[in-house]
């Protein structure tokens, strides 16, 4: 078990730089999730940590030891791949034992270790099977077992759940989280699914185009998004962003209404974006922020999502599930000032 540090890590393929200086500190036993759209460099970062690709510049430290020039096997890491990467010609037991092959452990200890891991992952009776006889979830468990058996300092997960069906994914998500609580090792987990990120992580790293956008706990990135990208990416349905302009201390939304929000800093120009999450934007005839005509209803049970055509474009709001408005109704929508996020329209940075 160890901490992990990335110091201004860059990676180029030829003349194209895909990672532009990633810096991050992960403390011992932390569960960190890298999340972002495809092509954002999250998997590349993971592969750099694993040693499957060479860093162009920057330093990777695992347990206060620079590992840039070490082979993957010397880095004390283990990795779980998206397609499981189980050796199809070996039994489950041999798959798990493969990583122990080079260690100097006596044979009896190796056997004990394999049984222990199989016990934790609840697959003792699967040990003699071939991978082709396993279901998707069982294969993923074998892949995790293969990583666990070596007792590495850092676990690396590269989108391990994206090949599973929705139900199994939820189940494995929980299992990995339990496993982390039990084993307590450092985990770096890459995913493109923000729900996975929110539910599993101690801290989330949101990436886009080879830059880190924000690092924070799930609650931080949800409630205090650092910029419009994070605001849109985290949370489903994503945050509404309404164009607005500054007039003195007040913010004027397109359509005329004014809202009052305390800003930490002033925008570079006059234009700003006001962000509000659908679940904070409710029908409110007393103190409305915006109004428009309902175009689509999406009943979810406890609440109903309403798509509203406004002067600022289509936005999503939430209404009570029992008595929602009807399509074609004009609704007034309001939100508490504490739920409004203001972003600089030019840079996208948060101002609140």
């Amino acid at each position, binding site marked *: 078990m160890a901490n992990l540090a990335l110091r201004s890590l860059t990676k180029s393929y030829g003349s194209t730089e895909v990672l532009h200086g990633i810096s991050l500190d992960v403390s011992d036993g932390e569960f960190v999730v890298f999340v972002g759209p495809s092509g954002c460099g999250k998997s590349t970062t993971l592969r750099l940590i694993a040693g*499957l690709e060479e860093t162009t510049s920057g330093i990777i430290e695992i347990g206060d030891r620079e590992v840039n020039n070490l082979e*993957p096997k010397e880095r004390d890491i283990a*990795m779980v791949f998206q397609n499981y990467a*189980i*050796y*199809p010609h070996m039994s489950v037991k041999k798959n798990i034992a*493969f990583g122990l092959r*080079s260690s100097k452990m006596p044979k009896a200890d190796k056997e004990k270790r394999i049984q222990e891991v199989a016990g934790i992952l609840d697959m003792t009776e699967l040990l003699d099977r071939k991978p082709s006889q396993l279901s998707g979830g069982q294969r993923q468990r074998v892949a995790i077992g293969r990583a666990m058996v*070596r007792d590495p300092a850092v676990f690396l997960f590269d989108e391990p759940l994206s090949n599973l069906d929705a139900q199994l994914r939820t189940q494995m998500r929980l299992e990995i989280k339990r496993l982390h609580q039990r084993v307590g090792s450092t985990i770096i987990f890459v995913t493109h699914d923000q729900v996975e990120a929110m539910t599993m992580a101690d801290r989330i790293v949101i990436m886009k185009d080879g830059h880190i956008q924000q690092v924070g706990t799930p609650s931080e990135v949800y409630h205090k998004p650092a910029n419009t990208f994070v605001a849109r990416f985290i949370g489903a349905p994503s945050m509404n962003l309404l164009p607005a302009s500054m007039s003195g201390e007040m913010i004027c939304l397109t359509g005329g209404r004014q809202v009052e929000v305390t800003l930490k800093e002033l925008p570079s120009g006059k234009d700003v974006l006001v962000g509000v999450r659908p679940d904070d934007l409710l029908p409110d005839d007393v103190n409305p922020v915006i109004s428009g005509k309902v175009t689509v209803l999406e009943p979810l049970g406890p609440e109903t999502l309403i798509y509203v055509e406004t002067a600022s474009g289509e936005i999503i709001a939430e209404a009570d599930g029992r008595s929602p408005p009807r399509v074609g109704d004009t609704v007034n929508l309001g939100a508490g000032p504490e739920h409004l996020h203001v972003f600089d329209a030019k840079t996208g940075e948060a101002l609140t």
Partner: protein
Amino acid sequence: MNPALLGLVTIIVGVGGCLGYFYFSNLILDKFIFPAKGPNAGVNINRANQVRPWLFLFPAIFALGLYLAYPVFETLRLSMTDRTQNDAFVGLANYQQMFGESKFWEAMRNNMLWLIVVPAASTAFGLLVAQLTDRISWGAAAKSLIFMPMAISFVGASVIFKLIYDTRPEDQNQIGVLNAIWLQFEGGAGSVIFLKVLPLIMVLAFGVIVAYVGYLLIKPFITADEKPGGLGIIAVRIIGIAVAAWLVITSIGSLFGIVATDLPYGEPQTWLTIPFYNNFFLMVVLIWIQTGFAMVILSAALRGIPEETIEAAVIDGANPFQIFFKIKVPQIMPTIVVVWTTITLTVLKVFDIVFAMTNGQWETQVLANYMFDKLFRANDWGVGSASAIIIMLLVSPILVWNVYNARKEMR
């Protein structure tokens, strides 16, 4: 008639005949035999559709029957008759006569030698080339060059290699590459390194590898923690152990042979007349041709291995050799088996190379050439057909296994 014109006419008649057959046979079926009208229109359409596949298959079935199935039975019949006794039925007398001939056993022994060496060497070289050219920029060019012999006919390749093995009198310039190289050795230190030390190392390495394989086969019997497997696997293991033991003893014998032999330096050699070794000079031709085939198939198989399993092995701490032998090779094993058996079939039927280069002289006879000798030179249909049946008996099980594996591979 002008040959070009004749060719054109043949093409038109041939292609037109095929089209005509399919068009008119379908027409007759649909209009006259099962017409799609009247009270039985629906039934007739279904019947016509049941017949139609056979209509399309008929030309192929007929041709295969005439040129493949019928000859098998005719050969079997001929192998039990004697031409000199007015085609009288003689039972297994021809086989008896053949088994009594030393030339037949020589052909049999040589065929078995070919059977071990050529598929093994071609597959091994093909795998080696496929792996080595996988990641380099000029790999594709190298592969094309190695694949090119596939385009040369066996006879053409034999002519090329005959020139390589060619011999001229000592006072003339050697046009054979092998002799030209041979004459560079005159017994100095270089000669000792190349012709004594290097072969010693190679034979030693071969012996060690075979011994190791034998050890792997024998291990389950002597250690407790591995099971030797079912009865069939035990039988295969015992045969494997026996072959390995024989090969190890042979290699040890060869080691002494290499040290003891006095090499005739400075004299041009007639390579194809050196008994036993000339077999290998002939095999080189087929290996040269078949390596390209093995390489292409195995290269595609190597590309098909999931990259992630290799990366997982890298992270698990496997070195390149372990990745190749423990991760890559086992995953493409079914393809290796198909390649191996396919080459085995070619080897069992090998004829052209031996026919063109030595014609079975100097102890290089093989079964196919033996058959040709008997059938068309000695005009002895009986023994010729008997040897053909022997070849078929050897080929059939491998063919069945090959098709079985290839089908499994496709699924």
